[in-house]
C-alpha cells in the first residue's frame, strides 16, 4: 500500500539534460556531412551542356576550374551581359589565364604537375569564339590536358 503513496507525494524530478549536447552534436555532424562545400562562388551563368561519352574526373585537386559564360543576373548591372571568363572568385580577362595556370602549377607537388587538367565549365549559350580563345591561352601556357565538363545526358538534348 505504501508504494502508491510514495508516487503521489514528492517533487517532480528534473528532466536530465545530460544528453542534450550529444543530440546537438549529432545534428551538427549530420549537416556537416550532408552539405557540399563550394570552394568558389560562381558569378557566371553555368548551364552545362549534355554529353554521354564522358569520363569521371577522379582527382579533384588536380583540376583547374575555368568558368565562362554570361554574368549571372545579379551581376549583370555591374559586369554587363557579354560572356566573361571567371577564375577563382573573380572575373578575369583572357590574359590572366596564363598567370592562373602558372599559380596552380606552383601549388601542386612536383610529380603531379604533369597530371594537372584544365576543367572548362562553360555555359552552353557561350559562343565558341571565347572558348577557342581560352584554348589558345591554355596552349600558350602549355596546359594541354583539358576536359569539357558536362552533364550526363544524350547529345541530342543539347538541341532542344
Amino acid at each position: 500500500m505504501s508504494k502508491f503513496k510514495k508516487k503521489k507525494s514528492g517533487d517532480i524530478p528534473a528532466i536530465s539534460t545530460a544528453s542534450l549536447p550529444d543530440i546537438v552534436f549529432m545534428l551538427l555532424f549530420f549537416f556537416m556531412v550532408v552539405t557540399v562545400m563550394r570552394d568558389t562562388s560562381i558569378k557566371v551563368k553555368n548551364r552545362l551542356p549534355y554529353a554521354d561519352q564522358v569520363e569521371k574526373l577522379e582527382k579533384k585537386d588536380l583540376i583547374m576550374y575555368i568558368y565562362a559564360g554570361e554574368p549571372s543576373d545579379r551581376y549583370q548591372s555591374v559586369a554587363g551581359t557579354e560572356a566573361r571568363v571567371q577564375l577563382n572568385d573573380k572575373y578575369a580577362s583572357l590574359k590572366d589565364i596564363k598567370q592562373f595556370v602558372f599559380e596552380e602549377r606552383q601549388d601542386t607537388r612536383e610529380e603531379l604537375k604533369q597530371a594537372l587538367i584544365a576543367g572548362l565549365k562553360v555555359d552552353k549559350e557561350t559562343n565558341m569564339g571565347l572558348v577557342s580563345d581560352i584554348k589558345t591561352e591554355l596552349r600558350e601556357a602549355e596546359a594541354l590536358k583539358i576536359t569539357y565538363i558536362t552533364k550526363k545526358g544524350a547529345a541530342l538534348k543539347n538541341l532542344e
Partner: protein
Amino acid sequence: MARRSAPEVNAGSMADIAFLLLIFFLVTTTIETDSGINRKLPPIQDEQDPPPLKERNIFIVLINSNGNLLVEDEPMDLKNLKQAAIQFLDNGGGKGDEACNYCKGAKDPSSSDNPVKAVISLQNNRLTKYSDYIAVQNELVAAYNELRDREAKRLFGVTFQEMEEAFKSESYTGDKDKLKERIQQIKDMYPQKLSEAEPKRTSR
C-alpha cells in the same frame, strides 16, 4: 521505505551513438564528382607545312553559327553523324601496305584507307554555340568508342570501356601491365585523330 527520486537515464552511451552515426555518414556519402569529355590540345609549334594528307583520308565536319552541320560538303542531322563517322573510319579502302585487316567497312576507294590514317577535321566559326560544339564532339567520340568496343570485344571478349574502368579501379585483380598493353593495342587500331582548326572569323 525512504523517499527516492526517479533514477536518471544513463546518457553515457549517447556520444557513442553519435559517433557511430557520424562514421556511418562519412563512409557512405560520396562527394559528387564532375565528369567531362577529355581532350588533349596540340602544342604550339612554329609555322610549318602541315603533313601531306590525302583528300580521302580527311572527314570534314563544319558547324555553323545556327548549329547546322555540313559533313563532307553535305548537310546532315546530328543523329546521323555518328554513323557517318563510323562508316568513314571503318572503311579500310587501302591496298597493300595500307590495307586494314580488321575493318568491316565498305572498302570504298573514295573514303579512308585505314583507321590509322583517317583524320576527322572539326571546324566551327566564332559564333557557334558551345552546346552544339559539345554535341558534335560527343558524337565523334562515340563513333571512336563504338569501334574500339567492337574490336576489344572481338579480341579480348570485353568492351573497351570495361577495360578502361578495370584499369582505373583499385580492386582489379588481374595483371595491370597486360591490361595496359591491351588498351594501347586497341587505341593504336583506332587512334583518335580529331583535328580542330582555329575557328574562322564570321564573314557577313
